[in-house]
């Protein structure tokens, strides 16, 4: 699933539903997605038309009259005299001597109840859904949260709760118990609310990392639980997987962004191009990729000096990755870079002749900056624009199954790039010359094509 496409489809359907646009107007507005959008929009329109239904002519006035009669009756009741629901004498009267043994028995019952409750509270921590102590466990969690103060501490506590929910699913799996709808819904809801808060500007790095690890682990666990998922919970399983996948994607982007921002020294940046750092309108407008890509300045040669670093650990807090959809306004010609870098215009133009590395390509220009990115139809590749302390970045990630296995982040202001791959379950920054040994050839070819195209113009 491509979030940008989801958003565009949803926006078009909303506009059509509200009568603000026709299908054809939507297609004209998003020419780069027109082929994918058209059949979906037409099916949706046909579906909406098919659902138009009216009750039988005699029914509607009769039903309306019955409804209004009920409303009038309710109004009449509401206006009638009111009496107190309970008349409690105050001060309460103490029981007489005859009732004192009963009072003592009641006190004993209360004592036994309190003792039992203490035992339940002490042992409820390892309870699983379906266990009679489980509601006590959840109640205790809520009570503990009430006494956690400070935004960071509360968020950390919530991450812990999401981790606990995942451990419960694992516990159910290890005991061969069925996974029910509420269990999966709870898991998805907890994760979703954490992902929504995924804001590196205020989130400590270790919490982003924990969310990234949590979502990765969730996907592993959820992939294996299907046989135990109850029939009516299949949709919740799918939803939980979607939430985990999206959450992991955002966490990886946030970590990659943070890591790429904390590399101020020139030599620490993985890859640069000849024009990197000094994009000018004159140079870009007339340049060709072959003219700029000198052998001794190839990405591989430069990248060999880059130390390997773990993207997920120790980066300084940075603003949230703002996942801005890349609008593809129709443009007959590839645009020339603008001369006003303070207000960069962003455009994406499909390049039908470029089939490098076996995929289709588009040219993205942001003011003076340009690079080639996998075209929208390349479902395995995700292209996002991220905004952080160091300005705008372009994130290009390859999705392998339900997670990213390779990504490149390019800083728009300088054209410098860093490459990140999934190694041993964590996302790590690597020199480009190690890329071929870590991910399959075609993926590496795509990343190199991106790197070679940075500020190389159309």
């Amino acid at each position, binding site marked *: *699933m491509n*979030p940008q*496409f*989801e*958003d565009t*489809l*949803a926006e078009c*359907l*909303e506009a*059509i*539903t*509200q*009568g603000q646009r*026709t*299908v054809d107007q939507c297609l004209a507005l998003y020419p780069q997605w027109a082929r994918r959008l*058209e*059949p*979906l929009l*037409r*099916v*949706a*329109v*046909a*579906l*909406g*038309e*098919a*659902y*138009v*239904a*009216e*009750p*039988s002519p005699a*029914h*509607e006035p009769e*039903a*309306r009259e*019955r*409804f*209004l009669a*009920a*409303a*009038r009756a*309710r*109004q009449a009741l*509401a206006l009638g005299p009111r009496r107190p629901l309970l008349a409690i004498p105050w001060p309460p009267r103490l029981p007489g001597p005859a009732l004192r043994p009963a009072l003592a028995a009641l006190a004993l019952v209360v004592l036994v109840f309190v003792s039992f409750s203490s035992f339940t509270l002490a042992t409820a921590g390892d309870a699983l859904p379906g266990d009679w102590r489980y509601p006590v466990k959840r109640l205790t969690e809520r009570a503990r949260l009430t006494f956690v103060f400070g935004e960071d501490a509360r968020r950390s506590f919530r991450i812990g709760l999401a981790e606990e929910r995942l451990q419960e699913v694992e516990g159910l799996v290890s005991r061969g118990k069925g996974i029910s709808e509420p269990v999966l*819904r709870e898991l998805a809801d907890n994760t*979703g609310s954490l992902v*929504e808060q995924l804001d590196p500007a205020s989130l400590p790095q270790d919490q982003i990392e924990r969310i990234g690890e949590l979502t990765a682990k969730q996907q592993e666990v959820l992939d294996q639980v299907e046989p135990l998922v109850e029939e*009516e919970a*299949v*949709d*919740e399983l*799918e*939803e939980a997987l*979607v*939430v985990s996948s*999206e959450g992991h994607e955002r966490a990886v982007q946030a970590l990659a962004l943070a890591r790429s921002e904390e590399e101020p020294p020139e030599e620490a940046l993985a890859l640069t191009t000849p024009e990197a750092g000094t994009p000018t309108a004159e140079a870009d407008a007339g340049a060709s990729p072959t003219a700029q890509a000198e052998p001794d300045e190839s990405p591989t040669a430069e990248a060999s000096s880059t130390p390997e670093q773990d993207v997920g650990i120790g980066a300084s807090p940075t603003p949230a990755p703002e996942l801005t959809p890349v609008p593809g306004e129709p443009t007959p010609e590839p645009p020339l870079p603008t001369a006003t870098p303070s207000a960069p215009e962003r455009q994406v133009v499909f390049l039908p002749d470029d089939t490098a590395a076996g995929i289709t390509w588009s040219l993205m220009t942001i003011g003076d900056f340009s690079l080639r990115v996998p075209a929208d139809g390349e479902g395995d590749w995700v292209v996002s624009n991220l905004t952080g302390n160091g300005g705008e970045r372009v994130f290009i990630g390859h999705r392998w199954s339900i997670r990213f296995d390779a990504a490149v982040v390019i800083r728009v202001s300088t054209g410098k790039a860093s490459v990140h791959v999934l190694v041993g379950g964590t996302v790590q920054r690597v020199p480009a010359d190690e890329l071929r040994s870590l991910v399959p050839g075609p993926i590496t070819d795509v990343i190199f094509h991106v790197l070679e195209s940075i500020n190389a113009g159309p």
Partner: protein
Amino acid sequence: MDLPSPPQGLAEDEERQIVDCARSGDVQALGQLYELYFPRVYRYVHARTGSVAEAEDVTEEIFLRMLTAIGDFQWRRVPFAAWLFRIARNYVISHVRKNGVRRNEAPLPEFIADTAPDPVALVEIKLSFEEALQAARGLSHAQREVIWLRFAVGLSVSDTARVLGKREGNVKVLQHKAIANLQKLLASAESEREPEDKRIRDEPAV
């Protein structure tokens, strides 16, 4: 060819005023709400049950429930439409659990062959209600829920998410998957019909 627009009728503040009056028991305001929402609630129930008689009964019951609950409605939680369709959804689910879905006596017709030359393009696709009902059966429950609220009722993605207790992003994903699945179902039904149509065409006229 556009999606049928939901009854827009009122601006947000006008609706707010009516709802506030209805909360205090104003019969006229309640009547206005009924008129405003009856077609959408009816369409929703009809899409879910597939039966006119059932849709009429259930819709009436939903409005009676709305009457009972409207005093507790609070703006800060959800918009009125989302609140009402939560009631509608809960009631239909409980109704179906208790009574089961009355299946149509006659078997549902197969998909009508699209006359467009390219079935994938679906340029002039037309679906009858029965075809839409049958197609929805090929979707997952969550996808069907989204389709009913988005295309039978015309709720926004945001309100649909509130009714279903999901995030907007999930609703968008489910919406996309549902329509893509419907597209495949239609194309597959079309391709199944093609050989039969061809055979009929090739047979000599008697």
